[in-house]
């Protein structure tokens, strides 16, 4: 019996330690978004990219795996996750002149523990039937939109980020009140994803919704969803004051990355011009690298003013935002 166990273990280990030139990625981002990038990277460098896609529990898994974790590179879809990983001491600083130079200072950590790859705006979509309106996030709580607003779950990281920025701007008391009134304005219980809200506007269920910028571009290029997107304007809120709330997708290196050199290469690749252009063209995001143009569709929405609140501030207020969401019973 023991013999078999030993043989079995050896077999398993030989599987695990086969390829030498590879890099392991834990990704919060969806496969279809990052797969083309990885394929390009492998083609250029010959380094194989292994991926686990998971939206949930990545930090927990990483923490449990500890120093034996195979993960090299961590990809996330918002700033809070990156900061969470650093707080749990799961990432390491990366000293790379390439990254440092290519990324604007407000989009990378002072201690080099995380780097943004793209930015995305939390937009307000509004039905064309409402006409052109200058929106502020504060307006979502306005009585005149009673029963006209749709949104996804408040607990979704994108919404939590927005609420955290509201806390930074107005304090907790105001934000709680805002959340309660916002909830009263909802046409239906928070549900679905950002695109589903635009569909709901198309269906006359509501007039206003929250959604990330790139979804609009994606819907416009999708045969089935174009009809939904055609019904709405994409609005950049708070243009006359602090600017629109911006979140990032970003990257960090795992603390115990076994393939550090390859990990650094991958990170530097992701900020390279071709990779950033791919982000811009296929994902309709705003590349962080200067000089990489946004896609034509995104360019057609025009310039906008972004809230210059430091990203770490948003991450810091995340927990407070969650508590307020519970207090307002936003999702119930």
């Amino acid at each position: 019996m023991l013999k078999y166990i030993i043989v079995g273990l050896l077999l398993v280990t030989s599987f695990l330690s086969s390829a030498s030139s590879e890099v392991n990625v834990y990704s919060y981002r969806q496969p279809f978004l990052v797969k083309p990038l990885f394929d390009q990277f492998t083609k250029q460098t010959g380094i194989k990219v292994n991926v686990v896609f998971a939206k949930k529990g990545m930090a927990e898994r990483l923490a449990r795996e500890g120093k034996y974790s195979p993960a090299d590179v961590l990809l996330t879809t918002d700033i809070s996750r990156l900061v969470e990983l650093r707080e749990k001491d799961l990432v390491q600083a990366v000293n790379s002149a390439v990254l440092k130079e290519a990324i604007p200072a407000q989009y990378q950590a002072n201690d080099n523990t995380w780097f943004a790859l793209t930015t995305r705006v939390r937009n307000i979509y509004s039905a064309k039937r409402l006409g052109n309106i200058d929106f502020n996030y504060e307006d979502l709580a306005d009585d005149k939109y009673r029963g006209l607003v749709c949104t996804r779950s408040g607990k979704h990281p994108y919404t939590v980020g927005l609420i955290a920025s509201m806390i930074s701007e107005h304090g907790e008391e105001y934000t709680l009140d805002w959340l309660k009134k916002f909830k009263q304005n909802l046409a239906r219980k928070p549900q679905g994803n950002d695109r589903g809200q635009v569909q709901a506007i198309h269906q006359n269920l509501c007039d206003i919704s929250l959604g990330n910028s790139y979804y609009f571009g994606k819907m416009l290029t999708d045969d089935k969803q174009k009809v939904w997107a055609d019904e709405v304007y994409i609005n950049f809120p708070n243009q006359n004051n602090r600017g629109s709330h911006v979140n990032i997708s970003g990257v960090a290196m795992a603390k115990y990355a076994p393939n550090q050199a390859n990990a650094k290469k991958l990170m530097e690749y992701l900020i390279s011009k071709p990779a950033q252009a791919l982000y811009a063209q296929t994902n309709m995001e705003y590349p962080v690298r200067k000089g990489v143009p946004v896609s034509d569709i995104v360019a057609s929405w025009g310039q906008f003013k972004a809230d210059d609140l430091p990203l770490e501030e948003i991450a810091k207020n995340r927990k407070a935002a969650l508590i307020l969401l519970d207090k307002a019973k936003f999702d119930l």
Partner: protein
Amino acid sequence: MIALYNQRKWTFLSYLIALVMMIPVLIMLVDGIDASTQLFGHLWQTVLPDYLQNTILLGVFVVLLSLIFGVVSAALISQTNLLFKQQLRWLLLLPLAMPAYLVAYLYTDLFDYAGPVQRNLRLWFDWQSPTEYWFFDLRTLSGAAVMLALVLYPYIYMLTRGAFEQQDQSLMRAARLLGLNAKQTFFNVALPLARPAIAVSASLVLMETLADFATVQYFSVNTLTTAIFDTWLGYGDMAAANALASVLMLLVLCVIVVEQRGRAGLRHQSSRPNMHKELIQLSFLQQIAASVFCWLLVILGFLLPFALLISMAVEYSNAEQLANLLETGINSIKVSVIAATVAVFIALILGFYQRLHGNKFSHLPQQISGFGYAIPGTVLAMAMLATFAPLDHWLNDIAEFFAWQQPGLIMSGTIFAMIFAFVVRFSAIANGTIASGIKQIPQSLDYAPATLGMGLIKTVTRVHLPILKPTILIAWLLVFVESMKELSAVLLLRPFNFETLSSQIYQLISDEMLEQGALGAILIVLFGLLPIILLNRKREH
């Protein structure tokens, strides 16, 4: 029962298995002990009461609906002269093959404002906006309850029908002789006699409901599972999440205990189930109502969603998806085959321990190892990480100490943890099936080989196992199918570059793009049909 054998090794092995299967649960309970009371206080003051209420309401609704669906259809099939009875008899089982999250998605697609049903209604009646008419909203607690009941009622139907069909007909005859008519006999004798089967199956349904996470999440119904997710992923508080999960598990354990207490001493075995049975004759109107009821269940629970899937597949499939399907399909089959084989093997060891080592406690290992069924997949996955990551560390530390090559995360970082989770979760099914199969083997077959001086291993392999073959196959298939459908554990424990059919479909569903995965969904359903067909054939013969 006489204790025929008393092999130390077998006893040791049985308890060892039970212990190993309990470890994740124990770790979860221990981890939950140092939960932050502050966070608990906050949750309790804000959302937890609502979550609890939703959980209880959902459980009650699903069980009630499933009872109505399952018991009524079982009674109609076994007690009346319903038309097309032979066909309906197995058709009513088909919804079992449909994962609940799939049905939920398909029906939302169908009945949504933009779906074909409402679109056509608007066309016919010339309505312009949703304010002009009322239409039910599926994405509610009751909607989720209906969805779950539609695919879970077959558990109740299957076991209750079995109970009705095995009942001793002489009891019914006695009742008739004492002046009851056929209907009174059914309500006063047959139905009460079927109570144990109904209770067992209802508790199964309740456990499945409490463990569900994909359906309620899709319908944005906030339950205890939501709370577990929130505390763990949102607040990043694993201990509190474990504590909540323990509460959920205790709820389920209560159900199990109540159910077992409730039917203690209610064992009813028939010696002559095959005696000619007198059927209740339905009037014309009753015949119509009964037919509509049964056919609606079949259509809504299986035929309609399956047809929707096929039409999606026809419209959207392409070669790329097929290649993709092959890879994920093989992954799914691989892990499910291993999980099913291990679970059945364990069930056999424990089943024979109970049978042949008859003493007061010999049922314990079997019962303990079944607890995992009550643990939601996500919670179980968390427990797996908590169990195997430290073990992996320990192994690697040893390797480091002896300067061997370090094995890496051979347990928590491979499909091992995933398969272990499957086995823990679905052992109850294998145990139950094998145990009932063993019970049907006449006791004399235990004694005869012993008197002839045959050893324990030989008795089991030469006498019992051949008789059990069909049961083993069914147990294997049931675990196989459940593993194919299982989702949460896969999502959390996947190794690199590893997708299964269910994880892929779930991701597509959460992006509202099931069309791309329709083929994979059909494959899951088709595999799910296998044990149903086999179960049916076994009963026929």
